[in-house]
């Protein structure tokens, strides 16, 4: 079963638009929620991350909104650029017994049109 559900599967926006990618989880043991960006032929790279005691985090044009009661979190990309075209993965991390399990969503392929 998919422990982290991500939507949409793909997204096309015009330059300057604000794409929003959503993720939902069930396991309340998750305590760290990173977003990864992946360009074709490359490994994923950390974009931004949030802990559940924070409702919003901004880094440059990227913002995570976190709703702990709804067990949902989302990524907003302000003033999107063609260079933001990539696949985005949300993840949820469970730290138990001294180890860390990263569970990823299925990914969102974003295309920003010039």
């Amino acid at each position, binding site marked *: 079963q998919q422990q982290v559900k*991500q939507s949409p*599967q793909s997204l096309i926006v015009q330059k300057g638009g604000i794409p929003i990618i959503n993720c939902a989880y069930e396991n309340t043991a998750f*305590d*760290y929620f*990173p977003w*990864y960006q992946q360009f074709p*032929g*490359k*490994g*994923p*790279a*950390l974009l931004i*991350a949030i*802990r559940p005691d924070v409702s919003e985090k901004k880094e440059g044009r990227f913002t995570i909104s976190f709703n702990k009661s709804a067990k949902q979190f989302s990524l907003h990309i302000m003033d999107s650029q063609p260079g933001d075209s990539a696949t985005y*993965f949300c993840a949820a*991390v469970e*730290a138990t017994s*001294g*180890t*860390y*399990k*990263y*569970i*990823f*969503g*299925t*990914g969102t392929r974003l295309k920003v049109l010039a």
Partner: protein
Amino acid sequence: DAGITQSPRYKITETGRQVTLMCHQTWSHSYMFWYRQDLGHGLRLIYYSAAADITDKGEVPDGYVVSRSKTENFPLTLESATRSQTSVYFCASKTGGNTEAFFGQGTRLTVV
């Protein structure tokens, strides 16, 4: 070179053959992970390791074997490759705590 490296980058193998994918990191990170990436499934955890000689199963471990005799290496072996194991495999490493996991460039494996 510093960082995390995977080898080979590309591999074609036949059904039933044993194949090993290598992962090496130079940071002495305690934690290492193997994922497979398939369209529609995202990244699925195969195995992870909290330290040398400590490994555990992830979401999709069947058909795979790992070992971690040294902190810096975490090889993944497909004992008898099947076509369903055709995928892109990513290795990752991290330190303790809620910190960034660093990914390698991936190995594209095709089983024919």
